[in-house]
Structures are given as C-alpha cells and as structure tokens.
C-alpha cells in the first residue's frame, strides 16, 4: 500500500509526505492553465485519505473541496501549492495560489457569480458554484486574497 502511494507520488512528482499511523503532511503543486491535469491532485488526496482509513463520506468531502479548488487554480491562477495535513480529529487542506486575486470576496462567494470563460464552461464548471461548494462541504472555511498576488483557501474537515 505504501509502495503504491509512493509510486503514484513519483508519477505525479509530488512528495510522499510523512505518514505516521493516521497522520499525514504533504504538499502538491498545481499548474495554472493545465486543464488536462485538473483533478490529479484531488484524486491523489482521495487515495491518500482512503489509505489513512478516513471514513468514506469524509474522504468524499475532502476530495470535493480540493477538486473545486483545483479547478479554480487551473482556471484562474498561475500556479498553486496544496498542503494536506491530517491530524487526529481533522483533515486540513490549504490551497495557496499565485494569481490575480479576487477583488471582491463577498461577491465571489455568491452562488452564480462567475468570471469563467468558454473553456472553463466546456469542462462543466464556471457556473459560479465552486467556492459555495467548497464552503458547504467544509466544516471550516477561510478565504483571503490579495490583488495581483493570489488567493489563500483553508478548508478543515472534522474526522472522528
């Protein structure tokens, strides 16, 4: 199992991270504009959490929030780092991107608000639901953004 994970990480060029029973700490990178790779990081996160024995419904929540965040990075940012930290009691996912930033977070959080182009819509996204979905599936959600620098998301999913 450990080898599978390591092979998968090697293939994706991401660090294996430190695993210690139900603890994990690792980072991934997402390349902006690379639509073909959108979803690879969340697929990896899902597989790591499954291997750590996190319950299926919580794995799904974590996979959904990281996937929507990944779609946002691919759609709007230059690149991003995703930090996954699993500690007893919670799964913590941080997405720190280098990008244009969000001028009005309150507006961006409104369902239906979108600046997506045709390419994003063709993928089945861009309807202004991403951040809402992230917020709704997270037990705790923080967002901050600086124009011209980037956006920082933090999602916490509580585990038993």
């Amino acid at each position, binding site marked *: 199992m450990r080898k599978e994970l390591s092979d998968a990480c090697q293939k994706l060029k991401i660090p294996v991270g430190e695993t210690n029973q139900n603890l994990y700490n690792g980072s991934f990178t997402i390349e902006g504009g690379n639509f073909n790779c959108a*979803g690879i990081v969340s*697929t990896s996160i899902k597989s790591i959490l499954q291997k750590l024995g996190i319950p*299926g419904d919580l794995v799904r929540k974590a996979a*959904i929030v990281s996937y929507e965040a990944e779609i946002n990075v691919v759609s709007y940012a230059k690149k991003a780092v995703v930090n996954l930290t699993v500690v007893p009691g919670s799964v913590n996912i941080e997405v720190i991107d280098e990008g244009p930033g969000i001028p009005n977070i309150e507006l961006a959080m409104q369902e239906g608000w979108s600046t997506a182009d045709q390419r994003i819509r063709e993928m*089945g996204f861009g309807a202004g639901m991403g951040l809402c979905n992230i917020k709704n599936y997270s037990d705790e959600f923080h967002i901050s953004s600086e124009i011209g620098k980037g956006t920082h998301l933090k999602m916490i999913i509580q585990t038993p």
Partner: protein
Amino acid sequence: MKLSDVKDILDAEVIVGEENLDMEVKTAFGADLMSDVLAFAKSGSLLLTGLTNTQVIRTANVLDIAAIILVRAKQPSSETIALARELKIPILTTKYILFETAGRLYAKGIVGCLPKVENTSGRN
C-alpha cells in the same frame, strides 16, 4: 437493478467496464454541470450526462459514482476512456436523449439520488 439491466433498458454500448456489469445500482443523477454533480450527486449513483471530457471521470471518481451513462450518443475522447479505465469507472453510451434516458430508468425502478433540493439556493 444490475448495470447489465441498465445497458439493456437503454440499448447502450459499454465503452469501459464490460467486467463490471454485475454491479447493483438503485439511484441516478443527471446534469452537464459538474459543479451541480459535486453539490448534489450521491456515491453509488449513476451519472447521466452529455459531457465527455476527463473532468466527468474526475468528478465521478471524487464522488464514488457507480457508472457514467453518456446520453445523446456522445462518444468520449481517448483521454477520457484511458482515465476511466485507470480509475475503474464504467462508461456506457446510449442514443436516448437525457429526458428519455432518465424516464426509461425511472420507469424500471431507478430513482433520483435525491428527489429535490432543500432550498432556493440549491444547497443540500
């Protein structure tokens, strides 16, 4: 019902997952907007969609969707097929339109993975 029954009801072609036709399915969700699928679809459901790119497979994987039914005779790209094989997600394609596909399955006992959304903002 079994996925093989779904195949027969929809006169569908199996593109990926011929070996998974024994799988039991009870519920379904239909949409072309993946954010809606992420918001509402439940694990173990069929996903009825007209979208054929790799994000459909990623979305299905994230949610543990049982199988993807492509409607309106849509054919997936080779990248989509390869990813579905890798992640072991069956893909069937049917010539029926989305409405007919849903109706034919519903008539045989498949129900929506949720009957309606809870409130006006569409949150579950």
